[in-house]
């Protein structure tokens, strides 16, 4: 990242972490090495393992949620923190080692240049790195088409949790954010608030420890639920953020 970027914007990296005692230290070390200009906040979503102790003993910057809220509620707490501390850009970055902090500059620069309000780090733009299983890709493609059909935005990697937003959407997401499986829904709500959404290529890794928030068993339920949520989102939209 160049000096111009750091001068003009305060960047916060939001790292949701639930049961990531094995990964979180390494993720933060990587982040400090690759993007030292950005601040970070770990959201410990009531982990049952020693995530909290790891954060405390290593002097990491963390928020400790007393009740497990799931990825949506956790990330939203991060946006609330970003709002409170006056950050101009917030980046979502998983705490399980799937995301590579080297791409933060790619996610940030379209926002700084004013080319986009929301930037999504996508595995499928260049097709490099870990591409997920065939069925999961099929599911992601279906959701992607459904979102395009329902609200006219074309995003290939709709389930990517690697994304960045500008100040306007920090405010919006702090006030309202989808709770259960929020990644696809956050894209639609962004589109409904008139966001310019852009995808940049990133390379993701296969997770190295911990368990994914979406197990194979829940995949079908996930597809049905998210599809329904996408379909009914627009007709039931009630704007809380003015």
């Amino acid at each position: 990242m160049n000096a111009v970027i750091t001068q003009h914007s305060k960047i916060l990296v939001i790292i949701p972490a639930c049961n990531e005692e094995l990964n979180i230290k390494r993720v933060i070390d990587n982040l400090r090495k690759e993007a030292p200009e950005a601040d970070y906040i770990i959201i410990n979503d009531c982990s049952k393992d020693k995530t909290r102790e790891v954060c405390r003993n290593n002097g990491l910057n963390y928020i400790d949620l007393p009740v497990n809220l799931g990825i949506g509620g956790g990330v939203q707490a991060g946006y609330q923190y970003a709002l409170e501390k006056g950050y101009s850009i917030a980046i979502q970055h998983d705490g399980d080692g799937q995301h590579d902090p080297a791409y933060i500059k790619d996610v940030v620069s379209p926002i700084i240049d004013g080319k986009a309000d929301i930037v999504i780090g996508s595995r499928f733009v260049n097709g490099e790195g870990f591409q997920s299983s065939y069925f999961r890709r099929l599911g992601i493609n279906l959701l992607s088409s459904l979102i395009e059909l329902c609200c006219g935005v074309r995003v290939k990697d709709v389930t990517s949790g690697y994304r960045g937003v500008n100040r306007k959407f920090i405010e919006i997401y702090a006030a309202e954010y989808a709770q259960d499986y929020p990644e696809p829904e956050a894209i639609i709500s962004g589109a409904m608030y008139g966001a310019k959404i852009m995808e940049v290529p990133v390379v993701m890794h296969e997770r190295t420890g911990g368990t994914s928030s979406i197990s194979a068993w829940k995949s079908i339920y996930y597809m049905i639920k998210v599809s329904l949520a996408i379909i009914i989102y627009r007709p039931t939209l009630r704007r809380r953020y003015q």
Partner: protein
Amino acid sequence: MVSFSLQIFFLIGILFYFAAIFYLLKSKVLNLKYALMWLFSGAIMAVIVVFPIILKKFSVLVGISTPSNALFAAIIFFILLILMSLTSIISGLNEKNNKLTQSLGLLEKRVRELEKEL
């Protein structure tokens, strides 16, 4: 037509139903706000038991051949209504729980930082 003894039996049942609701209200395990729908459905049951002709008129009106089936349909309808309102109450509580948890988390972080400065 509903027999007199059956009417008495149902009325006693409804009395117990109201007694249970009032007991829960009195021991403060049930909020009045949420008890209203139970009281309302109890009142409708009582009216139907005292004046079974309402049920008969209703079943003729909507074309249900036996009044007892109209009764079941009405009961199922009210149960669905109550379940739906329960779901909406839970959703509201869930949202409040989210907000509380988030602001508690943010506050805890501020307290932790202030303690460090002391």
